[in-house]
C-alpha cells in the first residue's frame, strides 16, 4: 500500500489500527479522532449553522432543540440511535446523514470530508467536557 503524505496517510493508519483493534477486545472505551483539527471543526460548525438544530458544547448561540444535544459524544454508544459511534461513521454521518440513516431528519450538510472529520474531532474532544 502506497501511503500519501500527511493527513491522508494518517487517516489510513487510523482506519487500519481500528480494524486491528477490532480483532482483540476489549476496545477503547472512549472515542477520539487524533488527526482532525478541532478548531477548524468548530469554525465549520459555525459556518454551516449546526446550532440551528443542536445544542453544541462550546457554542454560545444558537442552541437548537430540533435534534439531540451533542454533549458527551465520546461516551455515546450509538449515533442517531442506530449506528455504532466510531470516528469514521460519525464523520460520514455528519456529511451525509440520510445516506446512512434513511428518513433521518438531519440533511446532508455542505461540508467537505476533511471538515466532517474536523467536526467529529471537535465533538469528541469538546463533548467530553
Amino acid at each position: 500500500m502506497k501511503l500519501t503524505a500527511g493527513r491522508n496517510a494518517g487517516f489510513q493508519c487510523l482506519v487500519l489500527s481500528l480494524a486491528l483493534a477490532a480483532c482483540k477486545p476489549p476496545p477503547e472505551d472512549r472515542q477520539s479522532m487524533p488527526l482532525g483539527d478541532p478548531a477548524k471543526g468548530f469554525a465549520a460548525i459555525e459556518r454551516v449553522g449546526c446550532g440551528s438544530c443542536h445544542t453544541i458544547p462550546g457554542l454560545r448561540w444558537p442552541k437548537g432543540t430540533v435534534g439531540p444535544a451533542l454533549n458527551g459524544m465520546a461516551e455515546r454508544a450509538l449515533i442517531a440511535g442506530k449506528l455504532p459511534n466510531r470516528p469514521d461513521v460519525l464523520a460520514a454521518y455528519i456529511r451525509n446523514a440520510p445516506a446512512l440513516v434513511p428518513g433521518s431528519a438531519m440533511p446532508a450538510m455542505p461540508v467537505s470530508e476533511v471538515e466532517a472529520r474536523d467536526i467529529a474531532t471537535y465533538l469528541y474532544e469538546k463533548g467530553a467536557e
Partner: protein
Amino acid sequence: MFEGWPPPVLDPAGPYASSVTLLSWILFAMGAGVLLVVLAALWIALFGRRALQEKLGGKKVIWIGGLAFPLIVLTALLVYGLSLTRHLSDDIAGDEMRVRITGEMWWWRVAYLDEAGNAVIQDANELHIPAGQPVVLELESGDVIHSFWVPRLSGKLDMIPGRRNLMRIQADAPGVFGGQCAEFCGGPHALMGFTVIAHTPARFAQVMQARLRREATPQVAGGEGARLFDTAGCSACHRIAGTGANGLAGPDLTYMGARRTIGAGIMPNNRGTLMGWIANSQAIKPNNRMPPYRVLSSEELTTLATYLEAQK
C-alpha cells in the same frame, strides 16, 4: 457566522461610509488627546510640584482650558464634521435606483421600486445593488422605531412609523455587506441582521431582469411542497409570488432559495438551517413571531425545505 455578519464597523467600502468612519477616527483621536490632558492635570493635582499645582488652580487655566479650548476646538470640529458629511444629505436627483425598506419586528421588508414608486419586486432581509453607484433607500417602519445600518456602506438612519426617511448607500466594488438594526426594538433586536450584495452592473441587471420575470410568472402547482406549504399554514404569513401564498405578516419567500441567510441575516441558508428554523425557530431567535412547527415529521420538514430551496 458567515460572510459579512456580524459587520465590522470601521471598515468602510463606499463613499458614504468612509466619511462617517473618518469622522469617527477624528473623534476617537481627539477624545484620546483630551483624556491624556485631563489625566496629566489629575496627576499634577495629586502628585505634582507645588508650583505646578498653583498654576493649575489659577484662573488662566479655566479661561484657556475650560472655555477657549473647547469653544474653538468644538466649533472647528462642528464645521469640519458638517462639511465632511454634507454629501450624505445631498438632494436626491430622482434618477437613482430606489428601494423601500420597512423595519418589522424582527426582519426587513424589501421592495424594489419602479420610476413611479410602485413595488415591482418584493423580497426580505437581503438587498441587491449595483456596485459603483448610489442607491436611494426609502426607510419606513411597520411597527416601532428601528434603525437601518450597514456599517461598511452608510451611516445609520432611523426607521420611524408614519415617516419616510431617505438615505443613500453605495459600494465601490462587488461584495457582501452585513447590516444590523441599530435601534433597540424589543425581543430579538440583536438578531435582526441584514445582507447587502453588491454586483457588477451587468450582473445586477441580470438579477433584476430575472426577478421581474419571476414576479410576473404564475407558478404551476409546485407539487407536494406547495401543498404542504399551504396546509401547514405557511401561506397565511408568507408570500411566494405567483402562488396562492399571499401572507404579508412574515418575510416574502419568493427568493428564499437564493438568499444567503435565514432568520433575517443571522444564519447561513442551507437545508439544515432551514429545517431547524421551520421546526423550532424559537431556539435560534427567541421570541420571533414564527411559532415552532412541532407537528411536522422529518419527511415533511425535508419536503418544505426542498420546496423553499427551489424558490429563487
